[in-house]
């Protein structure tokens, strides 16, 4: 009896597991699934989790990677609005957003088939958008005139709307320009132009250097001369101030011009006799006039 119960439990567990395998399937976080009933897609599952289904002949589950897939188209030549040939390659991040729509569109949900279709859409969108813009929209030093982002989003929108009208179940996550190029013979002319531009730069640097240096030097000379002239003027003014100060003192001397005169002469005399002078006196010069009236022992004739 005990053994029977055990057997029943084990049997039940086995049946449950078997039934689960038959009736339940799971969708991972990175997947989307579509359930077909008798070959016709009926349910779309985008959220991860466990789901129930009828076993095989009735319902069948197809799972797809719903992560963003990378795709790059060919590096193809397009004509810009101002008749320049420009090679453009874009990269696309795309993902399956609606497995129900995606599955019947491409045989068995083949991503290769999807990418082929994407490539043809990209080609037409790219040439249409590039044809609307001049080269200056692709490369421009002025950030306001550069339309790099706008071009990318225009291509993206064109592809996106085509995908929507065709109801492919595909969504573009992002699109960007991967590579830009010029036709091979054009690169040669670009090189020639660059060479001549460089040569202009070289001569410009030479002249600019000499002229600038000359300018700096002459400006320095001029400024130096100005400084000296200013200093001379200041010196004259300072001396003038001294004289003005002296003039304020002059009235003192006018109290007695005779004395002033005398003192001036005295000091002039003092100065002139200061060094290496030889003085010759006769007896009339004071203080030697004292000798005049002294009795001498000179014999008188």
């Amino acid at each position: 009896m005990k053994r029977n119960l055990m057997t029943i439990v084990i049997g039940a567990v086995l049946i449950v597991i078997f039934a689960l395998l038959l009736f339940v399937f799971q969708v991972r976080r990175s997947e989307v699934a579509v359930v077909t009933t008798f070959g016709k897609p009926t349910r779309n599952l985008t959220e991860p989790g466990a789901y129930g289904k009828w076993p095989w002949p009735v319902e069948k589950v197809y799972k797809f990677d719903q992560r963003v897939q990378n795709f790059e188209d060919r590096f193809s030549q397009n004509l810009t609005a101002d008749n320049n040939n420009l090679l453009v390659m874009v990269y696309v991040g795309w993902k399956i957003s609606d497995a129900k729509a995606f599955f019947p569109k491409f045989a068995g949900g083949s991503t290769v088939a999807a990418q082929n279709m994407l490539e043809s859409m990209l080609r037409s969108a790219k040439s249409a958008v590039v044809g609307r813009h001049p080269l200056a929209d692709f490369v421009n030093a002025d950030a306001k005139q550069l339309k790099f982002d706008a071009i990318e989003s225009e291509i993206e929108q064109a592809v996106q709307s085509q995908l929507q009208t065709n109801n492919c179940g595909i969504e573009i996550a992002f699109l960007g320009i991967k590579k830009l190029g010029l036709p091979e013979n054009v690169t040669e002319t670009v090189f020639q132009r660059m060479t001549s531009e460089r040569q202009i730069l070289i001569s410009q640097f030479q002249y600019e250097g000499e002229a600038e240096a000359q300018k700096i030097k002459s400006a320095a000379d001029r400024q130096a001369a100005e400084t000296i002239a200013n200093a001379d003027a200041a010196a004259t003014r300072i001396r003038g101030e001294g004289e003005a100060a002296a003039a304020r003192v002059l009235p003192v001397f006018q109290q007695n011009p005779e004395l002033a005169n005398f003192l001036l002469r005295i000091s002039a005399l003092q100065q002139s006799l200061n060094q290496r002078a030889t003085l010759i006196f006769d007896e009339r010069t004071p203080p030697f006039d004292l000798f005049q009236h002294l009795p001498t022992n000179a014999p008188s004739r």
Partner: protein
Amino acid sequence: MSRDHEPDHTHEPPAPAPVTPDDAGSQALAEALHSSFAIVKVVMLLMVLAFFSSGFFTVGPSEKAVILRFGRPVGEAGKVLLNSGWHWSYPYPIDEVVKIPITEIQKVNSTVGWYATTPEQELSGEELPAGASLNPAVDGYAITADRNIIHTRAMLYYHIENPIHFVFDFVSASNTMQNVLNNALLYTAAHFNVDDVLTRDVAGFRDAVLQRVSDLTEQEQLGIVIDQCEVQSVPPRQLKDVFSRVTSARENRNKLLNEAHSYENQVLSQSGAQAASITNAAAADRARFVESITAEAKRFSDLLPKYESNPGLFAQQTLVQMMGPILTNVQDKIFLPGRADGKPRELRLMLNREPPQPKTAAPNP
């Protein structure tokens, strides 16, 4: 049926004799079955144990893990990631463990901006002679804002910050990173002039590339953090010479300008010094002049009363007072007394600029 085939045994009743060995055999069989059943039970128990213990797993130091239960990440929004250590999950097919390398720094190189080269050539440093033009199928380059062609390449280091996005939203996130980097290089080159990229604003170019990359990765929700970005740009090999001549011309100009500036500094500081000495001399003159005239005025005022009291006497006194020190200082003093006969004396002078030998002081009369 068996009876028909084996008539010899028909007259013998089914004897219990063969039963005994039969019984012994089945008993042995039953025992054997019993023991093997026990072994099977043990094995089953072990298998069940193994089934549950297979749920243990370790997460290494440089990775994180996510448990998917029925395909859905387990845990609240911020706690999905399991750190390094021991963890347990239900065995497959209920739970599934996804391990993600995280702290390790990933590297991606750009692929569109450089001319065709191989790693060996890169290492040895030799370059193949470049043709006259660039073949778009082989040689990569970027077009600058002034429509020049340059070669540029970038190396980006990043680490994964949000593995949920990185692993579950992208088939190949590192490929996407590469495209983002390529796009950033082209985009940035498209609004930089050639001289800015190559010489004038190399750091600015790198920062702009980095900015573009981080904008795009944020927009595309790649869940990564950029650690470092290295950008290298060179002029086309075809124009190497002319570009280097521009560089030397620029350096030459800078040298000239530097020389001019040093000349400027020298001249200006010299003139400044000279001006200062001129004004200082003038100020000194002024001070001395004013000082002396003031002193003289004071002396005048002091002497005035004396002079007024007796001008003649004062003059005599002053003169004599003055002559005293002068006479002691004077080198030669010659006194000529009048001749007795009253005739003037005759003197002969020999003028030398400097006397050859200083004479000893003349005797005082």
